[in-house]
């Protein structure tokens, strides 16, 4: 049924066949020999393998390290479009930080009756340990990934907020490097805003978020769960690019009230820890006692104001897909402005009327777990079999508050370079915003993920999606 729908194609929907942002690229592409492009595409794959740009897929021992397929047709965004998007993201990220502060302090938004109390109090991502604690510089989410989808010329929607530990930024950077390497001539013909400053901005932003009592140049480190983590490549890539140490839990301990890393010359204090370890595993003394990945006592150091943890523990509450449904109200509550970026219509299955609607229209909807990510545990109604639909309906009835549902959006497509020429595939976009007490910095573009199967709406790399270089044009 998917092929019968009308999709907005970001390259080929224009009146004369090509939309304006793609005009220059199209000219270049038309003159290219497809055989040369095929060869380049293979080169890119060899390059990714050689440099070890891989990710690990959980539960697949045989294919432990896999490549994320890279497609060489860029996703191009006009400067005018980007200006609006980045303004919307800034607004949203500002509101999310204000919301998190409020939720862990006075909870005005609950008192005002805008967000229901039980959505917070019964939420797994809510950390009571954070109540009353103000992180250094009052920043909760230092790094945010906002997932956007598009359905038409001016129709962008936020699909979800990633305020916990968004990943994928290394692909944004490596995709650009790869394109520069393969087609340098393209970048002299077309002026594309650069992304290569991201590691520098990240380091600056993290350093600016150091505890107030840290004097001199703050020591920044990245905390990784280790080489078996699916995003290990990204952790080591960012540490390398920023010139900071990549540490694991067993490299760290509490020394004189500070978090310190074991070096060849003794213990050295860390001021800012960019952690890529989930809340639950961060501190076996305060959270999951079985965790081997965290640092015993780090929460006590945090409470004493001697370390910045980025992102702050407990930010996952803003990723919650039920909270998401209130985001337009949350934005208005804290900024006094209407949300610039639209939300996708969302049915909260915890509400009986909504549940009834969702059950009645399951074949047309996308149903997600409120804490889910990575495309795991979701139902895409139109693509599901009768059997899948009925077993999912049973799950829904058992635990309705664990789910939300959204209409199946007619996601925009961008062509990929396929064997038989250009072929449209659905895409999404994850721009990355950096937050520090000094302000919000958004790298132009972000990561474009693309579903490689014709008609598929699932772009997650863990489910076989690929990526594209994302261009924001200079004016």
């Amino acid at each position, binding site marked *: 049924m998917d092929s019968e729908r009308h999709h907005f194609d970001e390259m080929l929907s224009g009146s004369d066949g090509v939309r304006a942002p793609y005009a220059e690229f199209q000219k270049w592409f038309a003159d290219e020999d497809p055989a040369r492009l095929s060869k380049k595409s293979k080169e890119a794959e060899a390059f990714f*393998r*050689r*440099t*070890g740009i891989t990710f690990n897929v959980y539960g697949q021992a045989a294919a432990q390290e896999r490549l994320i397929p890279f497609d060489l047709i860029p996703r191009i965004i006009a400067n005018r479009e980007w200006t609006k998007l980045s303004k919307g993201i800034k607004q949203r990220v500002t509101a999310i930080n204000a919301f998190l502060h409020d939720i862990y302090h006075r909870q005005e938004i609950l008192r005002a009756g805008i967000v229901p109390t039980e959505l917070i109090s019964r939420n797994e991502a809510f950390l009571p340990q954070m109540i009353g604690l103000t992180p250094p510089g009052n920043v909760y989410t230092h790094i945010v990934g906002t997932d956007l989808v598009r359905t038409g010329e001016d129709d962008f929607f936020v699909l979800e907020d990633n305020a916990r530990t968004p990943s994928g930024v290394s692909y944004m950077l490596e995709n650009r490097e790869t394109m520069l390497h393969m087609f340098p001539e393209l970048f002299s013909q077309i002026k594309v805003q650069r992304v290569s400053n991201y590691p520098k901005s990240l380091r600056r932003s993290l350093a600016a978020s150091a505890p107030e009592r840290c004097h001199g140049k703050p020591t920044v480190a990245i905390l990784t769960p280790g*080489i078996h983590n699916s995003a*290990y490549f990204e952790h*080591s890539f960012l*540490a*390398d690019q920023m010139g900071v*140490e*990549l*540490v*694991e839990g*067993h*490299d760290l301990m509490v020394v004189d009230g500070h978090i310190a*890393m*074991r*070096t*060849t*010359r*003794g213990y050295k204090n860390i001021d800012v820890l960019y952690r890529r370890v989930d809340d639950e595993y961060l501190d076996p003394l305060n959270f999951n006692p079985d965790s081997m990945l965290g640092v015993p006592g780090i929460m006590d150091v945090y409470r004493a104001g001697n370390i910045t943890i980025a992102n702050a523990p407990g930010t996952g509450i803003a990723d919650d897909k039920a909270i998401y449904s209130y985001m337009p109200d949350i934005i208005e509550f804290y900024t006094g402005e209407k949300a610039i970026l639209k939300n996708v219509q969302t049915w909260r299955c915890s509400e009986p009327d909504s549940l009834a609607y969702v059950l009645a229209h399951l074949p047309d909807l996308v149903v997600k777990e409120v804490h889910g990510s990575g495309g795991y545990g979701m139902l895409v109604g139109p693509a599901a079999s009768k059997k899948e639909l009925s077993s999912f309906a049973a799950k829904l009835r058992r635990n309705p508050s664990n789910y939300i549902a959204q209409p199946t959006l007619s996601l925009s497509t961008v062509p990929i370079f396929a064997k038989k020429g250009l072929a449209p595939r659905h895409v999404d976009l994850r721009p990355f915003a950096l937050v520090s007490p000094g302000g919000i910095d958004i790298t132009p573009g972000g990561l474009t993920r693309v579903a490689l199967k014709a008609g598929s709406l699932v772009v997650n790399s863990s489910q076989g999606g690929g990526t594209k270089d994302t261009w924001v044009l200079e004016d």
Partner: protein
Amino acid sequence: MLGKTAGGLYWMFRFLERCENTARLVEAGFRIALTRSNDPASEWKSVVITAGARSHYDAKYDSYEAAHVVDFLLRDTANPSSALSAVEKARTNARMVRTALTTEVWEAVNEGWMGIKETLKSPVKETDLPTVLGEIRRHSALVRGALHGTMLRNDIYDFTQIGLALERADNTARIIDVKYYTLLPSASFVGSALDNVQWETILRSVSAHRSFRWLNDENMTPSSVADFLILDPRFPRSLSFCSRILEESLGFLAKDYGARLTCHDMISAQRDRLRENTIATIFDEGLHQFITTYIDDINAIGQQIEKDYRFNG
């Protein structure tokens, strides 16, 4: 630098060196068994012992057949010192310390791992063995070359050299240890054809048959072979050479960090011992005893380095 990173660099280069040494042992064993020996099984047995893989091997096989030994030493992941196991571990350590490596070094290790893994996917045919062993040595040389040409000469580099020198010293010492009796100057063997085969095996195992000839003409005696392997400062796999690299690299660290630690005293003592001895005094004292002590010392120094530089907390 993180203690873990220092440890990762050290082990990365120990395993790379081990991978190469294993290939070298197989090469020597193969050649001798093929051309010179009346008793190939005993040649292969001493190859397995030298590789430090005897207990694992005996758990799996009853006899020392060429095909089994070659497969076990090159491809068997049940053997922690097989070329494949070693390159896997080298690459895992490299991945762990990737931020400390230049792109060139990382890519050389990663490509080496991909290449060797692919080559050793299925059992190696006898006809392909020389090519396969050559490939393993070439990958190893590429990593060393990238390291030499692109890395800063700082503590990172020092830890790679320490790992490399320790593994190499241990390897050469074990080769001598396994064959020490063939190097004893007992009159009845001197000059016999058998001994020449044994000495040649030893020299080939450290790729030194050619350099030995260059330096010693036709004068191949047990004492000249032993002297070369233990005391020759020019030969990059002699005990003396390896100990010098160790002392130098540890010395750079001491200077860089402004701290002299226990491991520094240990390596100085070992080098003094090597300096004070001649091959004659070593034979007087007992070659076997000398080598055993050397191996113990090397292992103790390795453990002390791990402690002094906080590899494991």
